[in-house]
């Protein structure tokens, strides 16, 4: 009985204290605390995730075996290697270099054009707001397939299929362009403002007219920008896929390295850099213009 009383007395006391607390906060003496709610609510989970990430990173770094003495001894060799690049020799193998560059440019232009031509219908089909269900899944499938392999893997595959030379490179880059351009086109179409498209549909326009008037003007600037960007990527990739035998400047570069003609290789690298920069600047200009 007496125990009961004590308990109840304590309860009353805390209740009283609590209410006084409350009075104090509403009297604006102590400001109400606020903190941004954490991303992960449960504190133990938050700490466990953070800690395990740190531990994993430490272990992963630990497994990288760096041979510091070898690295140190290699430095002068690296310097000699770089020195061999200078002065770049543009003239010695100019014929091979210009052939390679031209082949790469042909490959780039053709694969960008073919890739984009194919990705327009695929991209339209892969946009949920313009394509019916079955078409949508089919076209998304094509895009996923095209995007699942890196250009080098595709190039190796197509070189085996079609033999050495620029045709394999052309097919590789076209195929890769479909995945890139089609996906971004589809996403841009899905992001378009539906009301102008609805207005065009309300006039009695057919499906193609609807796309041409209601959708195309909205996606055009981004599509032009992306076409130039993909041109840029395709040119750089044409140098890479050449190394596995798909023609273009990459093949010339590979040959130069294999023959230890580093001065010619340097010339090729400089030309690649110059062309990429040229495309970069002109695409920036064109993009501003189409806005």
């Amino acid at each position, binding site marked *: 009985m007496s125990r009961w009383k004590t308990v109840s007395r304590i309860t009353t006391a805390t209740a009283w204290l609590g209410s006084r607390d409350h009075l104090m906060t509403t009297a604006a003496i102590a400001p109400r605390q606020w903190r941004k709610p954490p991303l992960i609510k449960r504190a133990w989970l938050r700490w466990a995730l953070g800690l395990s990430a740190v531990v994993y990173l430490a272990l992963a770094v630990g497994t990288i075996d760096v041979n510091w003495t070898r690295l140190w001894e290699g430095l002068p060799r690296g310097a000699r290697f770089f020195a061999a690049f200078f002065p770049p020799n543009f003239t010695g193998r100019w014929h091979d270099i210009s052939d390679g560059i031209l082949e790469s440019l042909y490959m780039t232009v053709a694969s960008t054009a073919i890739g984009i031509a194919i990705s327009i219908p695929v991209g339209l089909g892969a946009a949920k707001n313009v394509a019916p269900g079955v078409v949508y899944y089919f076209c998304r499938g094509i895009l996923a397939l095209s995007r699942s392999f890196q250009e080098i893997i595709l190039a190796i595959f197509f070189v085996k299929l079609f033999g050495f030379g620029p045709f394999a490179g052309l097919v590789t880059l076209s195929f890769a362009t479909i995945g890139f351009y089609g996906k971004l086109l589809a996403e841009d179409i899905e992001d378009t403002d539906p*009301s102008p498209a*609805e*207005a065009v549909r*309300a*006039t*009695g*326009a057919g499906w193609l*007219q609807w796309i041409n*008037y209601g959708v195309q003007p*909205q996606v055009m600037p981004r599509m032009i920008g992306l076409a130039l960007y993909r041109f840029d990527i395709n040119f750089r990739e044409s140098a890479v896929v050449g190394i596995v035998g798909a023609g273009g400047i990459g093949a010339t570069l590979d040959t130069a390295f294999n023959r230890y003609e580093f001065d010619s290789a340097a010339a090729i690298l400089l030309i690649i850099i110059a062309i990429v920069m040229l495309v970069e600047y002109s695409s920036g200009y064109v993009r501003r213009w189409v806005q």
Partner: protein
Amino acid sequence: MLQIRGLTKRYRTGDLALKSIDLDVADGQVMALIGPSGAGKSTLIRCINRLVEPTNGTVSLNGANITALGSYELRRARRRMGMIFQEYALVERLTVMENVLSGRLGYVGFWQSFLRKFPQSDIDQAFQLLARVGLDHMADKRADELSGGQRQRVGICRALIQDPDLLLVDEPTASLDPKTSRQIMRLIKELCGERKLSAIINIHDVMLAQLFAERIVGLQLGQIVYDGPPNRLTAEVLTTIYGEEDWTATIRKAEDDDEAALRPRADVPLENRQPHHDRDRMAGLT
């Protein structure tokens, strides 16, 4: 003549937007459709040209049952129903002329429209309409260079060049200032008169509806709760449509004229009130 019978729309989410609507709109009649947000106004006018597929019921325009049409006939039927939108719904990157000519898409083939080779008669008509709304000098401007009122006038031209029998107008003044709103409503009313068009105008501004429509239909939760002339919109009627509120400032009495309606309203912020000397400019649009 537009006849709607038992029109019902249930969205896939299960929401019943329209509950068996019956409505007739006579030729040449300008009707305002008022009601709170979510009452089904937009759904109703979109069910008429089947931008929204009705679940049940029939819509017929001049005796032709629109709800039964296949996709080809539906496109042909849509040519006879011009639509004017909230926020104008112009294609911003196209020129004013292209936007107006897009109203002819139902009449020309794909290649004609793709190459922008519209028949000369269409181009003449487009210039006439643009001149009528005072925008013929803007034909080659891009639509996004225009002001709100100008854009809506382009939207009106796009609807009229379809040569419609009926105008479906969805919140035409929603993003316009009070003065431009009146000009746009007056223009729509005048054009309907000139061309003997009937119109259904969704509008949330009760004052504007009373000023410019000859008939008012009140929609609430997908049902028609009022159908009558503007001067019978009493506080009780507005309460059944929208719910309890002080309606004294909203109701326009039968003897009021245009001018009285333009008197400063308590619920319009001071900077939006119409200065009196502006009245003569408001009388004509162009």
